[in-house]
């Protein structure tokens, strides 16, 4: 809980620094501040506690995921300093909003009460609508922000309606009481089931699972690339942490109704994500559909909630995050130098800048789930756990889908090495290089020594 307060205070501080005319120091201060909070966050390790009348619960789960969220935000902020060089007037806005998104994400990772969950989701979403539309003079960015806002608020309304229906049956917002309500009643009232399913719809919208995914490619494409990186990593992970918490603590590891719904949605998500990704020629849209397919894999983890899979979810999220961040740390300077966000922007990168090409190659191999990178062990871990929970056929489907995935990830690699380069030179500032190296190294280290992460949440 302290972590949440510190993060919010940091958010206000960066906002005030603009007033005090300390614009230059905003990004370094925010990064250092997040690093300090990351350290303070670790103090709560193995010290579970509840706060605000059991609205928030600090546990190892929330500490681990909050740590991951802080790390991702730190990485994004390191890149933000470079990304917003031409837009220094608004840097405090961007940084502050990013930090508040992190605060929202943390609420989604530690709530014990549906109201808190809703607050977290809204804090995160509203800030994100603003960021998605933050390139004011770019029509696509405006479109992205507006589209995201319209559909997102619709989903929030559904979520709220679902929460109200659940409250009507349980007479409480507390997850523990909802859980005992489920175990006490052999037949659940229709109002409760409807509420649960509506909540499920809204959550699936937030994590961009099919058939609630239509916003994702458009928003990813239109939003500024840095924000796309943020959405495809932290926002997705926060959504899954919330969904997982909801299902494990609130719904007794999944009621038959939620299981059925998630099963169908997982199949649809896997297929939609992977098959649509095959046809993309825009890197951001490709990442959007790849993100949808990863949501499909992560839904398998939620489905196997009975076999204690919090460490699987954490490992998979961390592996996915570092691979995604490494990919964007190469993509951002390429987009900037070539002025294009198509896959063809990467043509001949292997000749122009072998180091960047190698970094992106490793990120793509990691995303495709090929050893020795963390993405591979994440998939193996996931398949094992899902198999253990008896999800035989859907694991087979997931295996087939990871083969399809290889093709579109390798499209990027083939563009870099197989196509002729054009004239443009790629400028690669130091901060992007740093991010690329750190994320690639982490992906490799976690892939070779998975127990660093897997043993955390046993």
């Amino acid at each position: 809980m302290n972590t949440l307060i510190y993060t919010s205070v940091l958010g206000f501080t960066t906002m005030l620094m603009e007033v005090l005319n300390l614009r230059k120091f905003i990004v370094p201060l925010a990064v250092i501040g997040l690093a300090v909070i990351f350290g303070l966050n670790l103090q709560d390790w193995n010290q579970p506690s509840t706060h605000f009348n059991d609205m928030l619960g600090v546990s190892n789960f929330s500490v681990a995921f909050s740590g991951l969220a802080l790390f991702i935000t730190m990485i994004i902020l390191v890149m933000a300093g470079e990304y917003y060089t031409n837009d220094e007037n608004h840097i405090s806005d961007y940084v502050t909003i990013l930090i508040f998104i992190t605060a929202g994400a943390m609420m989604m990772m530690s709530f014990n009460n549906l109201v808190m969950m809703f607050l977290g989701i809204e804090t995160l979403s509203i800030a994100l609508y603003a960021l998605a539309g933050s390139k004011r003079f770019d029509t696509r960015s405006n479109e992205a922000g507006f589209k995201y806002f319209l559909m997102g608020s619709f989903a929030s309304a559904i979520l709220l309606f679902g929460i109200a229906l659940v409250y009507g049956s349980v007479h409480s917002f507390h997850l523990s009481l909802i859980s005992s309500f489920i175990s006490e009643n052999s037949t659940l009232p229709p109002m409760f089931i409807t509420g649960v399913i509506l909540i499920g719809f809204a959550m699936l919208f937030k994590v961009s699972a099919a058939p609630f995914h239509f916003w994702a490619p458009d928003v990813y494409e239109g939003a500024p690339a840095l924000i796309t990186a943020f959405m495809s990593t932290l926002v997705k992970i926060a959504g899954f942490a919330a969904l997982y918490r909801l299902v494990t603590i609130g719904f007794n590891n999944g009621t038959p109704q939620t299981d059925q719904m998630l099963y169908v949605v997982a199949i649809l998500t896997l297929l939609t994500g992977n098959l649509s990704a095959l046809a993309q020629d825009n890197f951001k849209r490709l990442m959007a559909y790849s993100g949808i397919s990863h949501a499909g894999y992560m839904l398998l983890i939620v489905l196997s909630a009975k076999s204690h899979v919090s460490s699987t979810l954490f490992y998979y999220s961390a592996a996915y995050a570092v691979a995604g961040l490494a990919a964007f740390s190469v993509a951002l300077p390429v987009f900037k130098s070539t002025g294009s966000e198509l896959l063809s922007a990467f043509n001949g990168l292997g000749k122009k800048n072998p180091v960047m090409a190698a970094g992106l190659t490793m990120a793509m191999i990691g995303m495709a789930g090929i050893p020795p990178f963390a993405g591979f062990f994440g998939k193996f871990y996931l398949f094992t756990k899902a198999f253990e929970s008896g999800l035989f056929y859907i694991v087979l489907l997931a295996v087939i889908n990871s083969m399809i995935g290889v093709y579109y990830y390798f499209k990027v690699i083939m563009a870099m090495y197989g196509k002729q380069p054009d004239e443009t030179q790629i400028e690669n500032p130091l901060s992007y290089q740093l991010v690329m190296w750190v994320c690639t190294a982490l992906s490799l280290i976690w892939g070779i020594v998975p127990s660093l992460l897997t043993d955390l949440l046993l």
Partner: protein
Amino acid sequence: MLSLELLFIPLFASLLILFAKGKAARALALVFTLIQLLVTGYAYTIFKANGGAAFEFTQAWVKSPVINIHFGVDGISLLMVMLTNLLLPLIVLSGFNRETKRPHIFYALMLFMQFALNGVFLSMDAFVYYIFWELALIPIYFIAFNWGDENRGKVTIKFFIYTLVGSLLMLFGFVFLYLSSPQHSLDWNTLTQFKTCSCNQTWLFWLLFAAFAIKIPIFPFHTWQPDTYKSAPTQGTMLLSGIMLKMGTYSLIKWLLPIVPDGFKEWQAVVITLSVIGIVYASIIAIMQTDLKRLFAYSSIAHVGLIAAGVFSFTQQGLQGSLAQMFAHGINVVGLFFCADIILSRTGTLQISNLGGIRNQNRLFSSLFLIVVLGSVALPLTNGFIGEFLLLYGVFEYNTWLSVFAGLTIILGAVYMLRMFQNVMSGPDSEHISSFPPLHWNEKLVLILIGGLIILTGVFPAPILELTQPAIDNLLK
């Protein structure tokens, strides 16, 4: 502990070469592959063939799911390690008079490949084995893709996805085995001792077999192979055909047979029949080929088809023969592709009809090429003979008629190989060849070494057979 050294010398070398420049890269590569060869030779001398595993190394790795790192060799895997580390210096040396773009990356990838191949053959835990299996795919993909000919884009992605499909099915099979094994382990010893019920073995067999059959490749899983061999750079083709496909045949014996013995016996007839069809089919296509590299590629399918048939005959002779033939085929096919590359570099063409009369220009090359060709048509006193003889014997014990068709490989092999040799080397002088410059020193050295090995292991096959005998006896028990 020796297994760790075998693994980490190439890995270290690969990282080191990445920072070398130009010619230093290939010199370093040669030095390290030679060191690796020496270590392998030392391992061979102290290895006692008693059927058990030697040089073992175990280390807990991940607590949940339980995965242990476990390396070790028995006679079968040691033979494969020897083949790998014997061929690598030759493959590196064969590139010494060639211009390679960005040689430091090329040779670093090659040494990384050696690391992964050694890992495949040394692993005694299925998970570790799987990691190395996949790891071996990455360097060869980039070698074929970055240094290949103009068709490489489509060809290499087909190769990559094809083999990955097999690997992932195998992974799925391993996950199943992991969960059904009593102590939740993927260790080779556990997997081979505990037997899952034969109802599961029926389909588990195909999950594992798919990966191996694609890698080998067994008909009808072979369609990626000729194009890939054709379009990869020669040194890449040598790696692919000389060593990488042995990963598949080796795994049939080391992993598939002991883990799903019931499934193995259930599908034995189907696989042998497929292999024999593959032999005849590939031989006939080889006769029709007009391009040297494609001809060698199809002859390779025929040879490995016989190896697979021998393994699936499940007789002592068949298994022995398959191992001897794996060793021999590795050497021969590297020799064949190297000769093709020498011809290409001097005449600029690989079309058989455009070639002719090279013998008059260069006697030495002609004689060395002849030895390699004779080795691959399995003439007695060459290394191909003992393997093919035992293989046919094994298949004969299983079924007479199948062995008759499998035996066609020798006749048809002689037809396409000798006819090719006649057209290319003797025959009338072709107008495409004005001169055939003499062999470079490294080319001479490589060809003489290969020729020497062909004759040496042909005359004295006993060490190879003695090395693998106890491990095979264990399997047959």
